């Protein structure tokens, strides 16, 4: 297999020189090769079927490779989930960057995505030339219907864990109605509901006085 980034020039992490060096591996720890980063994420990228990539990542990065401990894994996961983009790719580039800077991020990115990308390109070419094949359409229709059930289950599982208060439910409802029923474009939704939601959960201790303790104040600890 050809590995585009397994052989980088031994450049120092000068890209990150002006950055806080929190991403550098602890001193004295042997340097992890780009090849190993690539192959580790390649294995995850090739086996993580049906979503749930976080579980695969944890078992590989924390348990098998021990590149991260539980706390740093959670920290990276937290960043991945807060930022735009997919968990899988965000985790891959963040962990790659933590281990080896930009080349590591590229190695993680390619490893995570190449298996699925190659496979879906092949499937896509087959699909394009059989777009009216009834059997293929029926199979994909079944897959589509099943994935609606999957999406709903994942969404409600996430929602059930995170949403404890009426304010949360209200924000969920407003977002859902704007996108699905009023058909407001996503950028506009994010630029309006986003700041309002952040404002509603603003750090309350900075307020001169706090009139009433709403239930969501309890959340400040988590």
């Amino acid at each position, binding site marked *: 297999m050809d590995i585009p980034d397994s052989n980088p020039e031994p450049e120092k992490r000068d890209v990150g020189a002006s950055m806080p060096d929190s991403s550098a591996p602890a001193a004295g720890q042997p340097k992890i090769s780009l090849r190993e980063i690539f192959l580790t994420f390649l294995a995850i990228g090739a086996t993580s079927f049906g979503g749930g990539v976080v579980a695969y990542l944890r078992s590989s990065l924390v348990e098998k490779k021990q590149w991260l401990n539980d706390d740093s894994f959670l920290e990276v996961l937290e960043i*991945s989930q807060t930022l735009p983009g997919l968990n899988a*790719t965000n985790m891959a580039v963040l962990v790659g960057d933590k281990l080896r800077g930009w080349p590591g991020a590229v190695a993680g990115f390619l490893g995570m995505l190449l298996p699925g990308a190659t496979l879906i390109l092949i*499937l896509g070419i087959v699909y394009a030339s059989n777009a009216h094949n009834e059997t293929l359409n*029926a*199979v994909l*229709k079944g897959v589509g219907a099943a994935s609606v059930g999957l999406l709903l289950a994942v969404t409600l599982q996430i929602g059930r864990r995170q949403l404890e208060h009426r304010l949360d439910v209200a924000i969920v409802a407003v*977002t859902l109605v704007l996108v699905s029923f009023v058909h407001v474009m996503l950028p506009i939704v994010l630029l309006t509901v986003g700041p309002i939601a*952040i404002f509603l959960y603003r750090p309350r201790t900075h307020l001169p006085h706090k009139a009433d303790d709403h239930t969501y104040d309890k959340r400040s600890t988590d």
Partner: protein
Amino acid sequence: MNFGSLFSLLWVFSVLSIMAVGGGTSVLPAMKDFTVELQHWVNEDQFRDIYALGQLVPGPNMLMVIVIGYHVAAIPGAIIAFLGFFVPSSLVAVGTGRVWNHFEGSPWRTAIQRGFAPIVVGLMLAGTISIARTAITGDSEQIQICLALAAIVFVILYFGKKMNPALLILAGGVAGWIFLR
């Protein structure tokens, strides 16, 4: 193939990439708007089929953008759509990851996370509805079968024991082959 369509692909998928808070499902409605309604790159049935293809491969199901790109401009289109969707958000991730620890313990960091959590859930629900609108179609008998499939998968995953969703997705394909032809 012309450069205009490659540029549109790059532009559309880069915008979607930056907007994908909480993951790919959040941008599904916008992706459908852009690719089906506005640009007419694929029709609604193709969008559903392509989404289903994304479920069948390992890695993020948003790799489906490669197939949309392929429909627009063959292999170059596939590559541009892939880069457009995956590179911008990754650059943001690395950049933010490096400064993130500066904000350790900042109450605003918590505020942003708390504020966006329900937005993400709302967007994921919207994404689910968006796929449901295209995936649960056909004559009334087909609609019932599709609904039944979705419901069975949901009940097993939500209430049942932990199992690999990929198996249920494959079972959905088999059920489609038997019942939806």
